[in-house]
């Protein structure tokens, strides 16, 4: 480590900056959380104060539990996010392996074509996607969302994973071939465990936008039984009256699962981001 990084002033300054950023990032979440435990009046009178004996209320959570099928929304969101992530990682890793491992005509072109999706937002094609879903009878099913999110996540997944797969030693794959392992076994048993940090990175990058998305659920799956959490929370926001207690409680609950998933992936994620740095 060089001298500049060790001086007390620099340590203090860097911590101050990081702490400030952490506070700024966490503040909205904090406000949502405290206000979700307050009465409607208290939210508007003193939005920044902590709930006390007077203002404490679970009314928001009660409304959320009573109105609408909140657990169903929760379940829908979870199914859509987890399945999309699964397919993104599975197909992304498979495509990346083929691009990194096999020599075939048009390999570079195919890689470029798959990476193109990173630059073109999928929402541009919403109308065409909707027509496609109507034609195939997938509107108002979770499959519509899963397919769209899988398509949305694949370009970045292929791009990141193929870079990592090129780093996996050729000798190891060849040793597997000499020992009689099938290409599938080589892929699943030898290569995938070695690119796990990269997989976690891809998973986290894809998970949060999918979980928070309002656009595609609203367009492709607005029916009651397939609503996602984000869309379900919208029932509390009306044109004239908004049930803030319920909205804040719903949002607080919606944060939990992403946080759990993030904690699961985060250690791998950090390794994935820094693995190029430290050899």
């Amino acid at each position: 480590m060089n001298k500049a990084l060790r001086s007390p002033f620099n340590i203090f300054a860097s911590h101050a900056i990081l702490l400030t950023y952490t506070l700024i990032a966490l503040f909205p979440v904090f406000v949502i959380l405290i206000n979700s435990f307050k009465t409607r009046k208290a939210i508007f009178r003193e939005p920044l104060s902590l709930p006390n004996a007077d203002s404490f209320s679970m009314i928001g959570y009660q409304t959320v539990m009573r109105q609408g099928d909140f657990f169903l929304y929760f379940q829908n969101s979870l199914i859509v996010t987890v399945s999309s992530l699964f397919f993104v990682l599975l197909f992304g890793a498979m495509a990346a392996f083929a691009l990194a491992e096999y020599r075939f005509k048009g390999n570079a072109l195919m890689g470029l074509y798959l990476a193109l999706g990173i630059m073109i937002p999928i929402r541009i094609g919403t109308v065409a996607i909707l027509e496609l879903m109507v034609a195939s009878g997938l509107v108002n099913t979770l499959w519509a969302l899963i397919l769209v999110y899988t398509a949305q996540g694949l370009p970045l997944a292929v791009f990141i994973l193929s870079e990592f797969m090129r780093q996996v030693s050729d000798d190891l794959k060849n040793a597997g071939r000499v020992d009689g392992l099938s290409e599938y076994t080589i892929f699943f048993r030898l290569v995938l465990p070695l690119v796990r940090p990269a997989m976690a990175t891809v998973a986290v990058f894809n998970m949060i936008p999918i979980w928070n998305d309002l656009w595609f659920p609203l367009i492709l799956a607005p029916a009651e039984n397939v609503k996602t959490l984000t869309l379900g929370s919208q029932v509390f926001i009306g044109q004239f009256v908004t049930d803030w207690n319920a909205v804040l409680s719903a949002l607080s609950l919606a944060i939990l699962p992403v946080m759990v998933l993030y904690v699961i992936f985060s250690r791998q994620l950090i390794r994935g981001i820094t693995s190029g740095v430290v050899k």
Partner: protein
Amino acid sequence: MTALSLKNVCKSFGNVEVLKDINLEVDEGEFVVFVGPSGCGKSTLLRVIAGLEDATSGSVEIGNAVVNTTPPAKRGIAMVFQSYALYPHLTVKDNMALALKQQKQSKSEIDQRVEKASKMLSLEDYLERRPAELSGGQRQRVAIGRAIVREPKLFLFDEPLSNLDAALRMNTRIEIAKLHRSLNASMIYVTHDQTEAMTLASKIVVLRDGRIEQVGSPMELYNNPANQFVAGFLGAPSMNFIAASTVGGAADQTVGIRPEHIRVVQDGRLKGDVTHVEKLGGDTNVLVDIPETSGITLRLFGQHDIEVKEQLQLDFDDAQSFLFDADGLRF
């Protein structure tokens, strides 16, 4: 019996020809070393034999069966890689047993073969460890053990010693030689290190730019090189080449003299200033700058008091020198 025979093997990647018309026979029990500078195609040739690359044309026969379309695992070969290539998630024992499990061998057979191989390589104490918990030398022994348990018709070694430090390299080299004697198996060994080639091989194949330059026993190649490339590649320090005209020969010819065949004399055909002296105890290597031609190295046995900038007169015996034409071919 022939363990391996290559007939007119060519390999190209796109427009780049990596192997050009390779013909080679390896007899059973032979230790063949492919040697050549980096990029000469020796590793590619090994991969073609292993089946990890397909030959563009020509035929590869292992044990008298054409194996051009046979997958690596069914060719009856085993391979040891430069980077060890052990399976990181398996223990030493499972690393060695994996190929046998793939062949659906019985459990008792697997245990017996693993035990035999680990005894041979003194790996018994490490069977339950993972590769990450082993040193470089131990890892390479596991990689060799993984090859032995398969009892292949042909062993393939791809620069197995390159990642080891100098002392360990010599020990492992001796171990591989002993292994060859005790297994009496056919082995093909790729290296760019001429010392490994000279010490291990019963037959050396010198490659350059995808062609075989010469095939023969180490001493045959050393004493009777077919061309200037082979002469310069084998032997350390390498052979000196001087324009024949400086010693009274034809203009476009080159004379090659091994460093140990040059003598320091009172009045010789060559004369120059010493630029560097390497005292090794047993030998002394002296680099001399000859004005009319390139610098030459001489190797004197024992210890000598020669100083840099000293002027030396040198000579050599014509019978011990080699004469090459303008194309580098031997006369």
